[in-house]
């Protein structure tokens, strides 16, 4: 089945077949042609503009000598033959309902494509799967770009959009959901790639059956909660508009047959309107691939008061911690904590602050898994919370990070932003924004608050040690994510438009390049004709870019992003495309 083929294909450095490179989502390449000694000689090999200006997230795929490029709304897909990338092999330009633009929370982004390799037995061709902002999922013939099937996954009329990268597991494609800022009750769906048929759909809130909770859910960690909480931790019908979308990243462990991802923030942001722990929003989920049933689930931020949407990247590693060889999932969460759990049963192994300036929590109780709050930085109606760290953008948002198994280090793209937060009441109307909070964001304590600079960090984290090996500040954050390579070089783009290479061991800056526009995607690497290439999207945008993208001036506009990033426009302008580098 597709797993085996994809797993084999992912091992070939000539391919980059899924987000995060392989099912571990560690975005680590075994290639070392580009290394600490020569990365200073890296140069642009070729470039490609997508013809679109909204923020460009994700990273391209490369399969059998063909590169597949995703893009922002209207989500054009381009296939480029690497033998001659100057000619477009095929392009798919969907006509989308422009109304989708009005219900997207955070710029009109898209996080990537998925590839499904045909099996000889099947008549189904190789497929490229693409999620559209207007809620459609399309399967394209990977060789011709022709539409193979197209289903409705999300209804923009009720505020539901799609920005997540689809994810192929076996012969299914897993699709998430967006719209928790419009009260969308989140779900994940598996479709049969051969027929377009829905295999399962599981929600974040509501009745256990709809969430996928059975008798053995959380059996090794009953203290996390088990049955009935998708209803019991909400007042009345609030779970129906309770958020918990999933628009981040997936990982998969074929030996356990478990899919890992995080559910997002409860809705609305105004916590006073939704008493309860609001399960299972903000949860690391481990779902059985075949039926979507939850093996375990760990809610990181019960009763969220700050929009710490829990959808961030899940990186699978096998490491020895406290003398034990463990199968782990590591997850730098928006709430300022980086979690490492035993991915077999959900045991909490590590929970460290992403930065020592986190102030909403005092610590995580490792026995119960409960994050202990500092009540001073909670939020509530009739109160303006101040100097809350992290801000709603979290100390980590949609960046796809990487893990270097040789060095045992996670390379984390971290935000350094704090906020003031003031809730307000509003009614739910399907298809309208349903947030209920006014935010001001600004650099964290280590940044330059006078000039609104120093909004990010990049750090190398060791889970066994619970420590950071190195850490550097960034002017506007490395919103897109990182790539780790055996060459001892890690790469990432910055919001202000630099593509940087650092020494994986020391963080020393070895090389940088000024891209046409800020980067919010993450880098990938592939081999072609014996040469190692590194590719990255440029195209500033995403949540931090909304002020620039939509020309907003009010500092609290863009859900609070405009103020924090008011200076970004002095460093970069919009653009949208791809840079490919080689020695």
């Amino acid at each position, binding site marked *: 089945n597709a797993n085996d083929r994809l797993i084999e294909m992912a091992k070939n450095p000539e391919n980059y077949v899924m987000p995060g490179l392989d099912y571990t989502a560690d975005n680590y390449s075994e290639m070392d042609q580009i290394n600490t000694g020569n990365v200073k000689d890296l140069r642009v090999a070729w470039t490609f503009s997508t013809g679109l200006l909204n923020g460009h997230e994700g990273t391209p795929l490369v399969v059998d000598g063909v590169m597949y490029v995703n893009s922002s709304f209207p989500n054009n897909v381009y296939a480029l033959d690497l033998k001659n990338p100057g000619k477009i092999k095929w392009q798919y330009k969907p006509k989308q309902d422009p109304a989708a633009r009005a219900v997207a929370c955070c710029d009109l982004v898209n996080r990537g494509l998925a590839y499904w390799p045909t099996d000889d037995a099947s008549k189904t061709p190789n497929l490229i799967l693409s999620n559209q902002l207007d809620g459609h999922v399309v399967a394209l013939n990977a060789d011709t770009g022709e*539409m*193979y*099937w*197209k*289903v409705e*996954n999300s*209804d923009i009329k*009720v505020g*539901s959009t799609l920005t997540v990268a689809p994810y192929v597991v076996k012969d299914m494609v897993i699709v998430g959901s967006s719209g928790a800022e419009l009260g969308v009750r989140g779900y994940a769906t598996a479709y*049969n790639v051969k*027929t*377009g*048929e*829905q295999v399962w*759909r599981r929600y974040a809130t509501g009745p256990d059956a709809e969430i996928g909770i059975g008798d053995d859910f959380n059996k090794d*960690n*009953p*203290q996390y*909660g*088990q049955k009935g*909480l998708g209803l*019991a*931790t909400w*007042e*009345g*019908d*609030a779970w*129906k*508009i309770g958020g918990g979308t999933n628009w981040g990243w997936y990982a998969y462990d074929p030996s356990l047959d478990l899919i890992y991802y995080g559910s997002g923030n409860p809705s609305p942001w105004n916590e*006073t*309107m*939704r*008493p*309860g*722990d*609001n*399960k299972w929003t903000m949860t690391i989920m481990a779902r059985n691939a075949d039926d979507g049933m939850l093996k375990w689930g760990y*809610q990181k931020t*019960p*009763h969220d008061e700050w929009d710490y949407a829990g959808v961030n990247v899940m990186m699978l590693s096998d490491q020895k911690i406290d003398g034990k060889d463990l199968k782990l999932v590591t997850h730098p969460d928006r709430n300022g904590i980086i979690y490492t759990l035993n991915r077999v049963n959900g*045991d909490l192994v590590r929970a460290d602050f992403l930065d020592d300036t986190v102030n909403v929590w*005092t610590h995580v*109780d490792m*026995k*119960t898994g*409960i*994050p*202990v*709050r*500092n*009540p001073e930085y*909670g939020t*509530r*109606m009739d109160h303006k919370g101040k100097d809350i760290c992290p801000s709603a953008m979290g100390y980590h948002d949609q960046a796809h990070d990487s893990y270097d198994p040789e060095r045992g280090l996670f390379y984390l793209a971290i935000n350094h932003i704090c906020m003031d937060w003031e809730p307000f*009441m*509003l*009614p*739910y*109307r*399907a298809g309208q924004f349903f947030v209920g909070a006014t935010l001001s964001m600004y650099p964290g304590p280590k940044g330059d608050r006078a000039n609104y600079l120093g909004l990010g960090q990049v750090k190398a984290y060791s889970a066994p040690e619970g420590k950071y090996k190195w850490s550097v500040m960034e002017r506007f954050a490395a919103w897109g994510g990182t790539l780790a390579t055996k060459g001892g070089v890690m790469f990432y783009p910055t919001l202000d438009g630099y593509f940087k290479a650092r020494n994986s061991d020391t963080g020393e800056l070895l090389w940088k390049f000024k891209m046409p526009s800020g980067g919010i995607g993450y880098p990938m690497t592939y081999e072609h004709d014996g040469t190692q290439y590194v590719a990255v999207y440029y195209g500033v945008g995403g949540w931090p870019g909304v002020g620039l993208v939509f020309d907003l001036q009010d500092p609290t506009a863009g859900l609070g992003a405009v103020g924090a990033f008011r200076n970004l426009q002095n460093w970069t302008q919009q653009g949208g495309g791809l840079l490919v580098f080689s020695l």
Partner: protein
Amino acid sequence: AVALAMTAGSALAYDGTNCKAPGNCWEPKPGYPEKVKGSKYDPKHDPKELAKQSESIKEMEARNAKRSAHFKETGKWVYDVSKL
């Protein structure tokens, strides 16, 4: 893994650690209601609005089922369900 006993949290401020049951630990902040219904923070949601998402999903799922059924039968994908 440990089951959590009701521990004595701060009576003055919500810190998340006073659990009614495993995984059910929320408590109102001092001076705020346990339930918003009927309180000054009652959002007074319109049940018709609250029902819209599940209705829409039911309809999308039905249309998708028709499409894939036709596809399995004929090998052709027809998006426009009025043509099925």
